[in-house]
């Protein structure tokens, strides 16, 4: 069967499955790439009205607390520090501007595509203190850990990291514990699962009785994930399914997990919208304290002040869709983005702006009628 026929078959089965069902199915994906690819490919438009694929806290830039951005910006303003960052972080504004703004003011902010590149800069410029903005989920954390180990083995004293890594499971648990958020099942993140393995979601299934499906990133795979999840819910089943075995194994990548464990310990982390959650992030082990910019530069996080009018917090927790934000598409666009969900190429607002703007009327109407 070719992909087109398969898509038609999945769509038909999904429609038959939920036909006449009064209660909508609320499915959440927790992966920025699922958000973007689902929007881009138009998968949402193939879904029946009573199946909703909601975007959760899957975009690493969007879940980074504003106070962390403030700390980075302040570090950049010192003048003696070079900030190394992945590209998406540079435009996210804190209370005192963004990395892009401080770069315009003369700060040394450099975009890197990997921690290897960051190490290279530190080696080349031994007189600069280089701080890597270590954000992202379990997919990027091992790369940060590897860089710390490498810097330690070389005695590279001018390299450090400002850690803000996040763990996916605690965020899923927090959402499930929130009575305001309604989730019937999860489409689990693809590449995070490559690292942590599909079995990591077992507690969501056994303790919270919510089905979980791990799936790939293409439209067909997303649709297949939605179908399998819906099938379980309609049949009253609660299982963990891995539909992406070519990339995700049951127990993940042991080398990557060992790297994380060698350098980090789980610690309290501040998330945008979700607040501080114990054991939801990664702290640098004392042994590597010399490479922890928080300790090296005695940095303390301040308070969060969300941009006025921005409802990113609601968007990343599935409580609102972007078109419900008054600033969406008018004041806030990818060119002049107010919140991180519009800044980031994996952010839900940017994905909606690019691919789902035309749907705004239907969604707004539904929101008013209280369907959402």
């Amino acid at each position, binding site marked *: 069967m070719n992909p087109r026929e398969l898509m038609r078959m999945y769509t038909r089965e999904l429609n038959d499955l939920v036909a006449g069902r009064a209660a909508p199915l609320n499915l959440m994906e927790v992966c*920025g*790439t699922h958000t973007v690819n689902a929007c881009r490919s138009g998968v949402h438009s193939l879904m029946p009205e009573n199946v909703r694929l909601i975007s959760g806290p899957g975009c690493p830039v969007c879940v980074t607390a504003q106070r962390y951005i403030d700390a980075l910006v302040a570090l950049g303003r010192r003048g003696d520090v070079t900030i190394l960052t992945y590209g998406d972080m540079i435009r996210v504004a804190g209370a005192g501007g963004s990395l892009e703004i401080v770069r315009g003011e003369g700060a040394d902010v450099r975009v890197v*595509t*990997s921690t*290897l590149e960051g190490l290279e800069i530190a080696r080349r410029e031994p007189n600069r203190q280089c701080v890597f903005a270590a954000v992202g989920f379990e997919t990027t954390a*091992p790369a940060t850990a590897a860089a710390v180990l490498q810097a330690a083995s070389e005695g590279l004293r001018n390299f450090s990291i400002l850690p803000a890594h996040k763990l996916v499971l605690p965020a899923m648990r927090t959402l499930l514990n929130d009575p305001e958020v309604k989730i019937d099942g999860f489409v689990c993140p693809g590449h995070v699962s*490559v690292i942590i393995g599909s079995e990591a979601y077992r507690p969501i299934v056994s303790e919270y009785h919510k089905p979980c499906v791990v799936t790939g990133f293409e439209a067909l795979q997303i649709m297949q994930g939605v179908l399998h999840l819906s099938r379980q819910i309609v049949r009253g089943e609660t299982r963990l399914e891995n539909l992406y075995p*070519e990339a995700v194994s049951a127990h993940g990548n042991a080398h990557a997990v060992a790297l994380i464990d060698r350098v980090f310990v789980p610690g309290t982390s501040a998330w945008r919208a979700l607040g501080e959650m114990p054991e939801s992030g990664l702290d640098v082990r004392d042994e590597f304290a010399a490479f922890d910019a928080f300790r090296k530069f005695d940095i303390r996080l301040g308070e969060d002040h969300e941009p006025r009018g921005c409802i990113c917090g609601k968007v990343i927790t599935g409580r609102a869709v972007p078109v419900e934000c008054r600033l969406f598409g008018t004041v806030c666009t990818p060119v002049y983005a107010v919140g991180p969900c519009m800044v980031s190429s994996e952010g839900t607002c940017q994905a909606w702006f690019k691919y789902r703007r035309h749907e705004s009327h239907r969604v707004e109407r539904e929101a008013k009628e209280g369907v959402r």
Partner: protein
Amino acid sequence: MCLALPARIETKDELLAWVVVGEARMRISLIMTPEAGVGDWVLVHAGFAIRQVAEHDALETWKIIEEVESRAGGSHEREVGA
């Protein structure tokens, strides 16, 4: 940030390798896939191979990426994974 693409290993020197990703050559770390060797396919994320993948699956992924790109009018936006 969460970009991950399949790439073939061209040369390997301990845990560093040169890979071919589409039309580009890139230097990456094999610290998470130390068993991968020259000619093998790996999934590359932010300069690190995060998993070895079968050639068949890798080529299949590239076929889909190329299809999506040609439909998007040659746009090189590639968002493949968190």
